């Protein structure tokens, strides 16, 4: 913690950055913090409650963040993967941001605890299972002690497998019920570090591709489109599901997409921005005939 605070203080003192984006402890738990003065760096924390994907704040269209000046961002593994996504898709210049990596031993599902909870198989976030970036590599500074492996929970994959085992009609019934609660508020999109479009397809009206009314037709169109647009891009941070005010299990869709992308292209979302994503790469050995 001190190492993190010292690093932030040094970057602000030296004038290398104007703001450090990290986490702070608050009255209602942990939350993102925007520290602009060296004197405030003792607010910064990193613990099991720091679930928010801070790469989301690097979306260049967030002018209220960009207006604060050059940023240093504290990144755990899933944040670092999302930053790589932004770099890969030319949303960010690498030297336009300073990355402070933190070693992560997993986080809980919700940040709302006054003290950091010890991780258990019950409270650990489903994103942490199979995490391959517990120590971000492509960062400018790496801080913190190595942390133990998070408790093993394969709950998400088990639930995906259970859905796969259903008949198409049963699966349709499951998602019809889940999507029936959707109000098309798009909190899932706003929380996503990779949903950075200047104008989302759901906001296009000439022609209108997706009906914005939260009836079954509109809700399927929205949720399926959101999912498709993140295939091979989603880092699995689960922030969309956490943001959803009506508890739609979007993580199940995202995990299934990861599996499909791996089966088709052998691709797992990488922390290395130079590894091209299937959507942005041409390969002569592509599994699909039409593109060869």
């Amino acid at each position: 913690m001190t190492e993190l605070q010292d690093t932030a203080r040094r970057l602000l003192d030296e004038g290398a950055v104007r703001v450090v984006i990290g986490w702070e402890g608050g009255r209602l738990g942990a939350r993102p913090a925007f520290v602009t003065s060296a004197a405030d760096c003792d607010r910064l924390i990193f613990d099991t409650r720091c679930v928010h994907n801070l790469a989301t704040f690097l979306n260049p269209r967030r002018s209220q963040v960009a207006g604060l000046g050059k940023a240093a961002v504290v990144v755990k593994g899933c944040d670092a993967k999302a930053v790589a996504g932004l770099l890969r898709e030319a949303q960010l210049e690498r030297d336009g941001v300073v990355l402070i990596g933190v070693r992560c031993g997993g986080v809980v599902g919700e940040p709302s605890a006054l003290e950091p909870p010890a991780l258990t198989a019950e409270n650990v976030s489903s994103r942490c299972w199979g995490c391959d970036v517990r120590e971000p590599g492509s960062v400018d500074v790496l801080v913190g002690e190595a942390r133990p492996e998070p408790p093993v929970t394969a709950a998400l994959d088990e639930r995906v497998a259970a859905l796969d085992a259903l008949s198409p009609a049963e699966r349709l019934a499951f998602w019809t019920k889940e999507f029936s609660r959707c109000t098309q508020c798009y909190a899932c999109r706003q929380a996503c570090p990779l949903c950075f479009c200047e104008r989302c397809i759901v906001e296009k009206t000439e022609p209108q591709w997706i009906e914005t009314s939260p009836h079954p037709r509109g809700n399927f169109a929205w949720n399926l489109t959101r999912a498709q647009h993140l295939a091979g891009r989603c880092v699995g941070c689960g922030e969309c599901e956490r943001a959803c005010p009506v508890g739609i299990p979007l993580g199940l869709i995202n995990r299934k997409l990861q599996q499909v992308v791996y089966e088709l292209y052998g691709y797992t979302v990488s922390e290395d921005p130079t590894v091209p994503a299937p959507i942005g790469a041409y390969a002569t050995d592509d599994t699909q005939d039409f593109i060869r």
Partner: protein
Amino acid sequence: MSDETIDDRVEGAAEAETIDFANDDDVAAPRRRLLLTHEALAALVAELAAAGTPAVAPAWAGDAGRAAGATAAARETEYRTVSGAAELAFGERLPRLSLKQFFLPPTEVLFSWRRSGGGVELVSAPTTFEDQVVLGARPCDVAALPIVDKVMNWDYADELWNARRAATTIFGLSCGVEDDSCFCSAVFLEPAASRGSDGRLTPVEGGYLVETFTDKGEAFVAGHDALFTELAAGADGAALDAQAEGFRAAARERVAANLQVDHGRLRDWLDHHFDDPFWASLGPRCNGCGVCASVCPTCHCFDIVDEPESVGRGVRRRNWDTCQTCVFTLHASGHNPRQDQNARFRQRVEHKFLIYPLKFGDVLCTGCGRCSRACPTGQDLAEILADIDALAAAGEAAS
């Protein structure tokens, strides 16, 4: 902007000093006081279901809910039409969404249209609704309804809202206070507020003390008379009264500790600090997702869309909308008067605590705290109001 005040901007705005925030539609004294045992409540729900009268109540949410990894210690609840007492979640966690959806659904049809000959035929949506009853709603959800009534009957009487209001009888449930995000007592309410309620339940040993406040409440009780026991005079009745009052008093004390603000000076500060640097401290954290508005019992903005159903016919609908999104104020020209989240979040605070009070004599907030609980980035309305109140107090001290 600095010399211009909200009075100049809002036509017909009252003078800030003269606003009477007394809840004129609050009801002072209960008419009847009865006991509803747990068994009788179960029988009541069964009776309503058998009669086909929709009964909306806080109920356990489906198992799917939040996926694995959520740390939720208790099961989530939601308001929905219930058919049996086993579904009821009275006094458990606050339902995810407020009661608003039963009066302003997330989507509803305004009218449909069809090409007919050389013209267009319009068919209005039905504006009559079957009677329904709400049982056990939180006072902060119920009080929101008479507050929103004012805008729904301002320049236009909203037939759909008004008809649903007229068709609904509401029994609130005295609240034991959810957590540190609650602040109803800082917005002219309290955990057992009767505002908007036709009747109120308060937990006592063996069931609920039931108080009726309106003709609708009286009529509902009369329609199910066998299930309610008139509170006996004397010791037994007094004991139940004491239990109910003890419950309410503990809740009042608990929520009062969360927030206290001076609305006069808060409003005055908002009116004169449109460009204050304080707003830039709130915007960066905000995702602009509007979850706060979705879960809010008083946020009532809607978007209107035309959707074709087939060739030559379609439907006009209204859908929930929120000032927290970029496109809410985006002009066709490309200009956006609220260019960033600092301006959008300021709008949220100003509409609730300055504009609506001046225009309608009510704060557009019932202190339910849902926005703070649901915010994925930890925006905390009670903290924000306390901060503004402190800035206002400092300003007063300096002048």
